[in-house]
């Protein structure tokens, strides 16, 4: 009896006429019971902390003999007056501009190559994709070794041309760009995979037809392939933006935000304020800014989303 009840309901619209009130209640119950464990954890570790961050950003940091009190916008006031915050925001923007277009363009190039009839494409794919499966910590270790002044790989190569050693990670102007290079190197292969998947969905008759028409490969790419890849580009773009605000492992290992905060990214600043200075009230205010950025990305994606992509 029981199994019949839920069965009638999940049989969907075709059985709609037979749906009884008790069966409908069963479906509500089963639906929620199945969802409950995941929903509880999501609420506890995603929704509650997101709201809790906003709430706590209006409260002072509890200290030994001073409990947390409501301070209004004080934390935000300190934020506006905090030069390191502005530095981190600027750095994060530079980081976005430095990593996102470069890694997307390289990913597209790699995918087109690996998808074509190029010789040794299996090896090419391995070379492009391997950095992706390494932890950022490992990648950071490897590149730190290359950036070492005088002895690192880069300065050794420069040495061959008689150029002097240079402290890449210890110089304000170059440190952030060093991190950008590492990030592009690690991410391009990851994004390549999504382009590769999309390229394989494009029917081959299209390129055959274009070939018969005598259009050049570049023209075909510009007018057919690239537009067809737009949904993928959007997906990759959103992921790249999120990643550039979410990933700070390389900052922790390679520069610790230095020299002189030149490589501090927003999340790294939150980490420092929250877990080095234990100023959780201020860290909450900083996190609110990060959440606002992510919400903007979500809204942007929502409005830019191609109408044809819909969740069935």
């Amino acid at each position, binding site marked *: 009896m029981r*199994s019949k009840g*839920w069965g009638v*309901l999940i*049989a969907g619209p075709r059985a709609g006429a037979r749906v009884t009130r008790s069966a409908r209640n069963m*479906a*509500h119950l089963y*639906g929620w019971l199945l*969802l409950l464990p*995941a*929903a509880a*954890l999501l609420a*506890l*570790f*995603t*929704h509650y902390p*997101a709201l809790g*961050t906003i709430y706590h950003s209006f409260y002072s940091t509890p200290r030994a003999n001073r409990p947390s009190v409501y301070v209004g916008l004080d934390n935000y006031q300190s934020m506006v007056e905090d030069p390191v915050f502005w530095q981190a925001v600027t750095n994060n923007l530079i980081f976005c501009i430095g990593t996102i277009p470069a890694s997307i363009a390289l990913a597209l*190039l*790699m995918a087109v*190559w690996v998808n074509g*009839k*190029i010789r040794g494409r299996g090896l*090419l*794919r*391995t*070379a492009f*994709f*391997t*950095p992706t*499966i*390494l*932890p*950022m910590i*490992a990648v950071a*270790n490897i590149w730190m*070794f*290359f950036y070492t002044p005088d002895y690192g790989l880069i300065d*050794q190569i420069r040495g061959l041309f008689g150029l002097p050693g240079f402290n890449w990670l210890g110089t304000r102007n170059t440190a952030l760009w060093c991190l950008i290079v590492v990030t592009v190197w690690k991410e391009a292969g990851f994004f390549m995979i999504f382009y*590769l*998947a*999309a390229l394989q969905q494009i029917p081959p008759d299209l*390129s*055959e037809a274009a*070939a*018969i028409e005598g259009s*050049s*490969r570049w023209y*075909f790419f510009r007018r057919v392939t690239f537009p067809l890849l737009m949904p993928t580009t959007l997906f990759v773009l959103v992921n790249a933006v*999120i990643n550039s*605000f979410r990933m*700070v*492992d390389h900052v*922790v*290992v390679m520069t610790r935000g230095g020299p002189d905060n030149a490589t501090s990214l927003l*999340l790294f600043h*939150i980490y420092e304020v*929250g877990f080095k200075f234990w100023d959780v009230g201020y860290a*909450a205010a900083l996190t609110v800014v990060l*959440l606002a950025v*992510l919400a903007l990305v979500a809204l942007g994606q929502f409005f830019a989303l191609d109408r044809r992509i819909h969740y069935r």
Partner: protein
Amino acid sequence: MSALARPSIIGDALETAGAWLLALVWALPILYAFWTAFHPGEFATRFSLLAPWTLENFANAWNAAPFARYFLNTVVLVTMILAGQLVLCTLAAYAFARFTFVGHNVAFALVLVQLMIMPDVLIVENYRTMRLLGVLDTTLAMALPYMASAFGIFLLRQTFKTVPRELDEAARVEGCGPLQTLWKVYVPLAKPVYIAFGLVSVSYHWNNFLWPLIVTNSVSTRPLTVGLAVFSGSDQGIDWSIITAATFLSVAPLLVAFLLFQRQFVQSFMQAGIK
């Protein structure tokens, strides 16, 4: 591709050369670090084809830090997260795919929120919660925020929706309850998706760093990534050969698995990405 589409052989050759050059640039860092790990320290900064090969760096790294323990910790962590994700995401995905319950649209939208606001950025509040729960410095604290994965729920929901209703009805006629139907019909049919999700999840959490760094504080809980960072960050005099050896030690299982089952890995990431 007919001959019409390729105007010049030179152009093709240039393109192939370009592709190979880029691949070389991409592979070089790993290859050079790999070479360093297998050669005596004095060659780390002085490349020479004649340098003798050695495993000493690996032995030194292994003895200098409790890597065996870190390995165990990472394996336990990754297993715990994956097991939790498989159970929770399967149940939730089944609910969204086949049950029309009150508020299911709102609930689904709330699940998708996690695709944007990942636990990675909620470190301050989640640390507060873990302290209140009294689980700081435990594997559970590292695993809990990631167990209900919106990505997993979404992926499995899409898969379950493609299961023909006839199969579902057949199971029902046989007298299966909802959970039995899930187990006997939906889960077996979604096997490739489970493998794809498993690979993506394991590689993500094997590599995860910031949250484990924050909630762990001892050798007995620290995963490999944090252990590696502690090891290479300690001011013990920087010996690049040993650090690169330790680095390869930490990533070896994942790297070897990737190189052996590359096609499966790439397919999995593709499948997970298309949605």
